[in-house]
């Protein structure tokens, strides 16, 4: 599967990628800024994400709340998201509304500050604090979002601190911070713009030049501190979290090769053998056969600097203790490391991943996002067309070498959630008795 790709760069440094597909009258516009929570300064955790909210509060020519309204009135969908090392903004609109989406993105890239007010900042601070309560504080296991990176990256590392931010740091954010962050990071030379779907290339280029061309280049951003990390954690790490939960749940994380490296694909296949879908080892052994776990999965963070993380995420059955769960998961990791994987297991994982890669190319929005990803991290959006081949190169020998190097006890970080109060413990007991029959 190859998708067509064109690129060009404006004089102000904006890197643009285009991918035409005329099967439906839909076009996706996707903008990545190469800034995320890693770029936050001390005392301002959560600021990159709060700032993302402020980008929907209007700009010089766009009123408060008008950004969402204009796109929805045009029949489009939109949103934005913040990650450790990037922030993205995107719209999918009927193709005759391409210029509206480009104009909205250009207007806020070039002329955000005139629209910023203290009142808007105060309201979005409340909204974000409610987002924190909703996604983390009032959600069982919710704190894993900030506890796992904090456990796996040393305190001085830019990936260590909370992405959503602490309540007090959010309280401290000011309009001056907005101005400084905007001027430093929201510049055309720190961004990638992708357009995918139903458009004419020459026309799209003309529109991009018209709306983004006049925006001045930035003055450069401060470099991130040295991100380099040793390949392993240097010993087992463990944190036990009593929480308002009824079932124990273990996040077992390993430092793993950064996204884009050959070994990343090896690690990803190894993770899939352990935790991708019901044919994976953890599901087959712990959910189906031993019935210790209710659910099991694996994932990677896909970080490109310092170290990536490979994570196993397993929730216990009511009658299993947290100790049993932790022991069983570690046994599976040991077994894979000691005995290796089979060619069939690698083939299953790669075949599933290949289908997923193609399925993910169906929507214009997903295509545009992938183009921005590869352009932002590697300066080369055409890497989207090489992913399946890189997975196909993974062999059992490579997976086994990876497992020996990275799945040892010196590279395991356990974040273990256990039920806090007696009420939930007795509920467990009650159900365990029923389960025992």
């Amino acid at each position, binding site marked *: 599967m190859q998708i067509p790709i064109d690129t060009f760069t404006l004089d102000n440094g904006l890197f643009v990628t285009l991918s035409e597909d005329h099967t439906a009258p839909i076009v996706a516009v996707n903008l990545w800024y190469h800034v995320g929570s890693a770029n936050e300064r001390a005392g301002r955790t959560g600021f990159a994400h709060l700032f993302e909210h402020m980008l929907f509060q209007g700009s010089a020519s766009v009123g408060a709340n008008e950004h969402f309204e204009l796109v929805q009135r045009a029949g489009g969908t939109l949103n934005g998201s913040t990650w450790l090392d990037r922030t993205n903004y995107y719209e999918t609109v009927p193709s*005759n509304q391409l210029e509206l989406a480009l104009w909205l993105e250009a207007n806020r890239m070039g002329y955000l500050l005139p629209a910023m007010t203290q009142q808007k900042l105060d309201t979005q601070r409340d909204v974000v604090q409610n987002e924190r309560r909703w996604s983390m504080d009032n959600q069982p296991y919710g704190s894993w979002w900030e506890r796992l990176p904090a456990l796996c990256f040393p305190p001085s590392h830019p990936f260590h601190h909370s992405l959503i931010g602490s309540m007090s740091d959010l309280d401290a954010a000011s309009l001056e911070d907005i101005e400084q962050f905007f001027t430093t990071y929201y510049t055309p030379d720190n961004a990638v713009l992708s357009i995918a779907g139903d458009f004419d290339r020459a026309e799209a280029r003309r529109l991009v030049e018209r709306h983004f061309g006049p925006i001045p280049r930035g003055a450069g951003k401060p470099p991130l501190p040295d991100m380099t990390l040793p390949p392993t954690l240097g010993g087992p790490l463990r944190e036990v979290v009593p929480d308002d939960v009824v079932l124990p749940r273990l996040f077992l994380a390993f430092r793993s090769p950064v996204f884009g490296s050959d070994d990343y694909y090896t690690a990803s296949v190894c993770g899939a053998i352990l935790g991708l879908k019901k044919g994976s080892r953890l599901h087959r052994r712990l959910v189906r056969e031993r019935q210790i776990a209710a659910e099991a999965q694996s994932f990677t963070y896909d970080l490109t600097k310092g170290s990536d993380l490979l994570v196993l995420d397993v929730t216990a059955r009511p009658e299993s203790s947290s100790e049993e769960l932790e022991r069983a998961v570690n046994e599976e990791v040991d077994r894979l490391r000691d005995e290796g994987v089979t060619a069939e297991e690698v083939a299953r994982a790669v075949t599933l991943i290949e289908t997923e890669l193609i399925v993910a190319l169906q929507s214009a929005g997903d295509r545009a996002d992938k183009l921005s990803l590869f352009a932002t991290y590697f300066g080369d959006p055409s890497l989207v067309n090489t992913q399946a081949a890189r997975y196909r190169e993974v062999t059992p020998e490579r997976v086994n070498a990876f497992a020996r190097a990275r799945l040892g006890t010196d590279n395991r970080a356990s974040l273990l959630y256990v039920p806090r109060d007696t009420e939930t413990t007795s509920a467990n007991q009650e159900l365990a008795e029923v389960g025992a029959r």
Partner: protein
Amino acid sequence: MTGTTTQTSGPTPRPTPTEPRNYHFPAFHRRTLPNGMRLVVAPVTKLPLVSITAVIDAGASVEREGQDGVAALTAQLLLEGAAGLDGAALTDRFERIGTSVDAHADWDAATVSLTVLAERLPDALALVRDLLRAPEFPEREVARLKDERLAELLQLRAEPRGLADEQFSRAVYAPTARYAAPAGGSAASVRALTRDVARGFYAERYRPTSTTLVFVGEVSVDRAAELALELFGDWQGDVASTVERAVDASPLTRVARVVAKADASQSEVRVGHAGLPRRHPDYFETTVMNAVLGGLFSSRINLNLREAHGYTYGAFSAFEWRRAAGPFMIQTAVKSDVTGAAVREILHEIERMRSQEISTDELTLATSYLDGVFPIRYETTSAIATALSNLVIHDLPEHFYDDYRVRVRSVTTEDVLRAAQRHLHPDRLRIVVVGDPAVIATPLGEIHGAPVETVTADGAEVAA
């Protein structure tokens, strides 16, 4: 146009749209096999993929009394042993051809669905045949899936969002109505299920005449029909019997209930009542009305609670469309100390919707959104397969998707007011909040005009 760029200082002017390009929902074709099994095929050639969905008239709403949860259990059990293969071997067969199969039952149907590379379609469909025609219901897997469901229900007690949804359904429907309990069954009903009950449900509901196979993607109508005939042509069975059961009975009362979660930092709020059956003639005006009220980011409720007050990360409303009257529900999560104020704003917005016509601007925002976003909803083969499944499940007119955008655009401000007056019922609202009773019971009682009921996560009443 020339290729030159005009350098301007300051923002560029707001653009106007160009002429829209035509869009048609993918053409689909129907066939019926001699045994009564139906096919719906939509050839879509964009990527080398095919999505298949088998739709079986075997949802939770046709369960017999005392068997709540058997529809979900039966659907899941299809994957746990069939045609001589155990669950692990079946999983392996699917995953080796690069796909994973989903089998589940919701209120109105059981579905077995997957997306696979087009070249693997025959292999995938042969496996789907095994699941549908020769499931084995191994005793061990029946016990395991029941235990997993019980674990899920236990998890729900500690999960405010899921708990709020469950308690809201309980508050909306009469205790005897099937909709009052979760589609997957409650702990008591799931414990009572057995292998024989699941086999009985399968034997009664899974028939060629109650099954439709939907194909979407890189496949021709003839090829799909040929494969279906080869794999399902000799599947025999009678027509499934009908089950008479009150699924959506709902008392005409107003209720305010707090589900106690001490020290909760947020309140999970649910406000609403029983809505409309999917085939109600007011479907379009009600859909547009809901979009204005709380269906969009730029809706009244979200702009009020989130953007004007900063009470929440988001607030939305929805009619859940089922064969019978599914719930109409407004949902949000707000900081505990503003719970009363937030509910007051929600009630105010419901009242405002019923008392005066919306502006033309609000109407066109909703209609142009629903109209414009329509093609974006159907970018993937699986989304199209789901749309066609709904056509089957609800027996919608053949041209429903072709007419959708015209019907949406023809809704007027008068229609919206009428829909609000007919289908929003302030006098029978159920207000259910999962939160800290110490903080929220009093303000909610003031709004309700009477003391609120307080219950535990199990639904047991707590003495005031």
